[in-house]
């Protein structure tokens, strides 16, 4: 549907930002710096991949920050129990999917609008995480798991980036090459058209929340590796970063539009701004202002462009 080249703004912004930073800061292009940017952006980008599906379908998930923390905590518990990396990641993904199922059930069966339902579960999941950990980080997990976040496959591809690449590939494939992806766009574009075409709407909305939960669960596991502990207070405010990534990448709050590549570009735009302002010695307070302004500017410019596109379409 939304072919990535149709929406150039996120990519041009990303490229422009990259060039500007490369020129203005000598340290920017250093491998360690770029690696750090990637590592830092991993968790939020993986979450944003799931959020892309949810938002294209016209829903929203505000619980992702808490959901990532809770899955991260259970990942840590699983690692304590089994000491197997695979088990830890699997538990993180499974717990995430299960919590996504709760979000989906609230939205599709109890008919609570997803904004409200996930606003509720945002608090519930956070409280749940604090309760099961007594508010204390879950440490004593195998050192091998923590080492993952600094290690790299064949010494070149950092494992967190590998996780992101897999998540992005799966998300892209789901969205562009499966029935679920097609229905994501259709559901967000016009719910009643889906009903009238005989699509089991509630089942698919439920499924989309489960898939998004699984992505977020993976992000929680990555976060646990990064912090070498299950932090019940991790990921506060991540939901807004993920939504911002989707929106900068061409998604809308009303649904029907967006793409995985756009979201990734959107997420990296924010990561580069953070990194660049750090390198240039700009105060973190000003960083917040810049990021806020970028979100408004990118979305505003894009809307303008789309308005013109619509006018030319209408003239056809």
């Amino acid at each position, binding site marked *: *549907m939304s072919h990535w080249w149709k929406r150039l703004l996120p990519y041009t912004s990303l490229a422009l930002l990259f060039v500007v930073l490369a020129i203005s800061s000598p340290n920017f292009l250093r491998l360690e710096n770029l690696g750090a940017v990637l590592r830092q952006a991993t968790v939020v980008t993986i979450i944003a991949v799931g959020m892309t599906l949810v938002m294209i379908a016209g829903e929203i998930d505000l619980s992702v920050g808490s959901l990532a923390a809770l899955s991260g905590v259970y990942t840590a518990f699983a690692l304590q129990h089994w000491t197997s990396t695979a088990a830890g990641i699997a538990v993180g993904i499974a717990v995430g999917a299960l919590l996504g199922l709760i979000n989906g059930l609230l939205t599709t069966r109890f008919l609570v609008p997803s904004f409200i339902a996930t606003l509720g579960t945002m608090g519930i999941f956070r409280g749940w995480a604090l309760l099961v950990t007594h508010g204390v980080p879950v440490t004593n997990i195998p050192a091998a798991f923590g080492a993952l976040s600094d290690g790299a496959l064949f010494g070149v591809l950092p494992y967190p980036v590998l996780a992101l690449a897999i998540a992005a590939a799966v998300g892209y494939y789901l969205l562009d090459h499966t029935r679920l992806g*097609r229905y994501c766009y259709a559901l967000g574009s*016009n719910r009643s*058209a889906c009903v009238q075409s005989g699509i089991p709407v509630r089942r698919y909305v439920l499924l989309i929340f489960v898939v998004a939960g699984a992505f977020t669960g993976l992000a929680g596991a990555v976060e646990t590796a990064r912090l070498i502990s299950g932090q019940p207070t991790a990921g506060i405010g991540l939901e807004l970063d993920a939504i911002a990534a989707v929106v900068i990448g061409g998604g809308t709050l009303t649904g029907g539009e967006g793409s995985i590549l756009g979201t990734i570009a959107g997420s990296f735009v924010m990561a580069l701004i953070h990194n660049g302002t750090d390198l240039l010695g700009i105060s973190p307070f000003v960083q917040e202002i810049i990021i806020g302004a970028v979100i408004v500017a990118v979305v505003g410019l894009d809307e303008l462009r789309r308005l013109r596109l619509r006018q030319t*379409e209408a003239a056809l």
Partner: protein
Amino acid sequence: MPIPPTDPAPGPAAAPAPAVAPPPAVAIEGIWKSFAAPVLRGVSAEFRPGEIHALLGMNGAGKSTLMKIIAGALQPDRGVLHVNGQPVRFRHPREALAAGVAMVYQELDLAPHLTVAANLLLGAEPGRGWGRLDAAAERRAARELLDECGIALDPARRLHDLRTGQRQLVAIAKGFHRARRLLILDEPTSALNAAEVRTLFQLLERLRRGGLGIIYISHRFEELAQIAGRVTVLRNGEIVFSAAAAAGSETAGGDGSSVASASMGRQTAAGFDWPAIAAAMVGEKVAVTRHAAAPPAAAPVRYELRGAALRGQFSGLDLAIRAGEAVGLAGIAGDGRATLAECIFGLRRFDAGEARLDGQPALARGSAEAVRQGLGFIPEDRAQALCPQLPATANATLAAVPAFASWWRLRRRREAAIAADSLAASGVEDRFWRLPSRSLSGGTQQKLLFARWLAQPSRLLILNEPTRGVDIRARRDIQQQIAARLRAGAAVLVVSSDLEELMQLCHRVLVLRRGCVAQELAGDAITREAMLLAAAPAEKTAGSADAGGQP
């Protein structure tokens, strides 16, 4: 208060004198209006105070254009409006309101979350300066207005707590509050049950006796027979019939009392020649080409519905459609046709009934099940069925996604082939295929929906107003599409208010009235007059109206 005083003092006692004709509240003279084609051609009429003036006409006769001109929403190309004898020119509905003319847009201009009082006085709230509201004064004013209209409603209640009929009363009181010379009501009873209709008529009668002029657009002859003082028929932008009740009487006030008693439920023979009115609406007998070839008499019954019922909508309905047969549902808006179509497609559930498709049970519990069983549905409002951002191809294949996509894989080539076949066969030009559906014309969008039910083959195709709002060429194309589906052996159910279309498309037409089949017409017996009179007979008994209503 910007409302000018009414000419006769309000109140039931002050009915206008029957002897002398009062000057018209609003008169129109030689109104012309063209859009792409002439819509109104020199329309002249007088709307008198204290008269309920019924306006009839088929779709496209120019009724709504004329009403918009009188209410100031449109300006005539030529012609004059007179208010109280003075020529006026309304450039905006505000100016019409200031002159005492208002159109009641049913529930559209009511705010459901506000109270009755707030709705009645919306935009004219009594204030205490500095933008502060005077709640007590608002309640008082609302109370007075409701009393004046004889509406027994608590002004503090919220609109969404009221029934449709009560909301309709509030809408009329609101219109009356703003404009006390002429009120225009467009199909005000379409969503009301019999008891609500009686209450509405009592209100209208009370306002009429107070000297208000009322233009009443409706197709329900039985209701018009109860309340109308004059009937005017518009056809192709011209007035082709106009007569006052009780033959020849020019003063509406004189026979007002008999009209009044009729509205209280007593059966009367109001002096209108209904067959003549139906004939005037329909016009000369233009030969209508019937597209559908007769299905072979031996064709098997494709779809069968028995004893279908839905509370407040219809009951005991039977329906059978043969393969290759098109059956039409005629009737008046609000008579359960659209709901019946939605129930068949599983968008709503029947309370009772049994359905079979090719002999297999086919009572769909949801649209997904209906599509699996082989049903297709094209709604009245195309916007409901299209994904605006998706290209024509994806919209065409939306119901057929399982045919080319699974959990793990979407075969794009296969989809492209399905889309191309169905779009081409449905007459959508290939230059439109990749465009988002929102940028396509209404006719192309409609063809796109036909393509959807070719991509996902349907054995029963349910069409609701299939050619509404499309141009003549698209209309012909769509009718050919339907004929092609029939030749392929599909059964087609057509819900339409366009009687000519039903004649063109259908082998049989069931005329619904208050949720029952009033008449079944077949072949050459399907005529516009027959459908009109069956849907809205002038003769009625108080009992038959009560049957459909619930208190």
